[in-house]
């Protein structure tokens, strides 16, 4: 593999990412899957980078999950999105930052649709006006939250307490970057680095000391794929997709996986446990799984945040092997405890039962 070839592709796909003053919208599902991630994003943006990030208390789902599952019609999805934009406008913001990749894809798709078919935009404005009395401006800048962290990856590196480096060997950690399908596959020009060789996570990995692994199935779906999982009968296909990826990446001996989509870390993490239960098979080294992280969790670890504050105890595939390699100290006793220390014995009792 020639890195200069990839750099040439990356140079073709640069996107504008706003500097400050973000209107942030959360994901429907991330807070259940990996609850520390969005909190970490806000902490990094506000406390580390001193940026203005605003969250509107009344924002809702973008409805993308229903749209891609064929249960929400496109006109409804557009009107819901228009309402989100109205809240951004009312709050005085112009830079829109969704936490979710599918939201980012849906917003991009809708803005492109409105660009090419202004009559559709006019129709949606009318729907919103009739339903809520609201008006809206379109965002001046639309960037996924991972784009924003990518933009400030050097600033984060400058404050790093830990690097993606094995403290015992001094070697860079081998990292698989997995990009959500809706990030750039639909609109390659809207993603950092394009669709074939996305740079958004690779740039973070490089900057924070790791080494990106290019493995044959890196473009393959994580296994969520909406209908693969949402339709119960298709779930065998969902786990087969994830297994395809694990089999493909295993020979490269990855230390960890980083993702930027709500569903990807969930499925890459949980299905490893299920495959192990079904077949007794693990894909990491030393008979361990491959820990799976969100990019916010990794940024938080690099900045020295407590692993349990980041919610790493919610991962089904244990993250400790990566913490140990990076030299991050943690209290195993606190893994399932509240901050006060309560709950530890209760969890232990549950495990015993």
């Amino acid at each position: 593999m020639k890195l200069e070839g990839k750099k040439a592709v990356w140079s073709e796909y640069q996107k504008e990412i706003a500097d400050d003053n973000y209107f942030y919208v959360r994901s429907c599902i991330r807070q259940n899957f990996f609850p520390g991630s969005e909190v970490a994003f806000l902490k990094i943006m506000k406390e580390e980078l001193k940026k203005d990030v605003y969250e509107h208390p009344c924002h809702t789902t973008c409805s993308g999950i229903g749209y891609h599952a064929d249960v929400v019609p496109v006109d409804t999805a557009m009107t819901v999105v228009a309402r989100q934009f109205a809240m951004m406008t009312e709050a005085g913001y112009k830079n829109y930052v969704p936490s979710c990749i599918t939201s980012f894809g849906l917003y991009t798709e809708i803005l492109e649709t409105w660009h090419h078919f202004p009559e559709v935009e006019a129709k949606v404005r009318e729907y919103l006006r009739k339903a809520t009395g609201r008006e809206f401006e379109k965002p001046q800048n639309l960037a996924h939250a991972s784009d924003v962290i990518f933009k400030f990856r050097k600033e984060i590196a400058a404050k790093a307490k830990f690097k993606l480096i094995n403290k015992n060997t001094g070697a860079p950690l081998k990292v698989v970057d997995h990009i959500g399908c809706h990030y750039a596959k639909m609109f390659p020009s809207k993603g950092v680095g394009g669709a074939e060789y996305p740079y958004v996570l690779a740039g973070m990995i490089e900057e924070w000391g790791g080494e990106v692994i290019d493995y044959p199935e890196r473009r393959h779906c994580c296994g969520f794929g909406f209908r693969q999982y949402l339709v119960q009968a298709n779930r065998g296909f969902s786990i087969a997709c994830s297994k395809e990826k694990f089999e493909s990446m295993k020979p490269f001996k990855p230390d960890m996986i980083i993702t930027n989509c709500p569903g990807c870390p969930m499925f890459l993490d949980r299905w490893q446990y299920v495959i192990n239960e079904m077949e007794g098979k693990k894909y990491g080294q030393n008979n361990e799984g491959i820990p799976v992280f969100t990019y916010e969790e990794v940024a938080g670890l690099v900045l020295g945040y407590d692993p349990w504050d980041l919610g790493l105890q919610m991962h089904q595939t244990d993250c400790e092997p990566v913490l140990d390699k990076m030299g991050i100290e943690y209290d195993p006793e606190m893994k399932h405890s509240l901050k006060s220390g309560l709950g530890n014995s209760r969890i232990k009792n549950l495990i015993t039962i």
Partner: protein
Amino acid sequence: MGKQIVVIGAGVAGMEAAGQLAKFGYEVSLIEKEKSSGGHINNWYKLFPDRRNSSEVKEYLDSVISGKGIKMIAGTTIEKVTRGKNHFLLDTAGGEQLTADAVVIATGFDLFKSSRKEEYGYGIYDNVITSADLEDMFRKGSIKKADGSTPGKFGLVHCVGSRDEKVGNLYCSKLCCVTAVKQAIEIREHLSDSKVFCFYMDMRMGGAYYEELYREAQEVWGVNFIRGKVSEASESINKKLIVKVEDTLAGRPLKMELDMLVLMAGMEMSEGGKQISQMAGLNTGENRFFLPADHHFGSNKSNIKGIFYAGTCTAPMNITETISHARGAVSDVIDYLNNGVS
């Protein structure tokens, strides 16, 4: 003093046009951006359909321009075209100003830059090469992978940069199918133990004896033809290429491990042609090649009186067609200079 004609481009079309015009007694200046004449044919090994060595065609073309009346100006480009009442002034990058009663544009084509098809990994994965790279290996008599080992399993991808809306080229480059067939046979000739798979959308074997070559590839050389586009290429830990293809005849997706992937790069309007079109105000078509005045009766004529086209600057053509087209341009130039018809 006889009439003066400037021919821009000393590839197959330009050399043929210049040679034929000189035979009729015109004074011809033949401009070439490279240091020597011949164009793409210098890089080719053998030609379809009869597998003649390309050097034979080059020798013929060299003999055509070796007569009197041709001034070869190599290593320069045209920087400015000025129209007079009945003549043109052409300024070269070398500071020379040429006067022409007529101009023949023979700026040819550029090969599609295969790195634009990012999913195939040209320029990223070591053993993804183009048809032009493979010709170079044939000429050197050594087909090797990047690590110096001998490849055993080849994939040839048709239509790279042709019939592809994603890269903005809706047209067929016409010669890639037969080039793939020719190269598949040549791979088998060079490496008798090799296996060759051609991935195609349609087999467009429209030239004389092309279909026969296609049959020979299958019946004599055992080349496998799979109807389907390659969707992506990647590299395994042992540096093998992994390609994903949809086999549309079998109706199923296919994943295959290969030693070498060869991209049949299509033809595009040359950069030199684009510059000339802008500086002279010449029309180009939706395919970005020069647009002839009439596709049926005026394929050598332009929208400017006194400027004519020869060869692949107007559309993809094989060498036979290119030489015929160049001779057509000569006929139109003579008609124009003698009778004022353009």
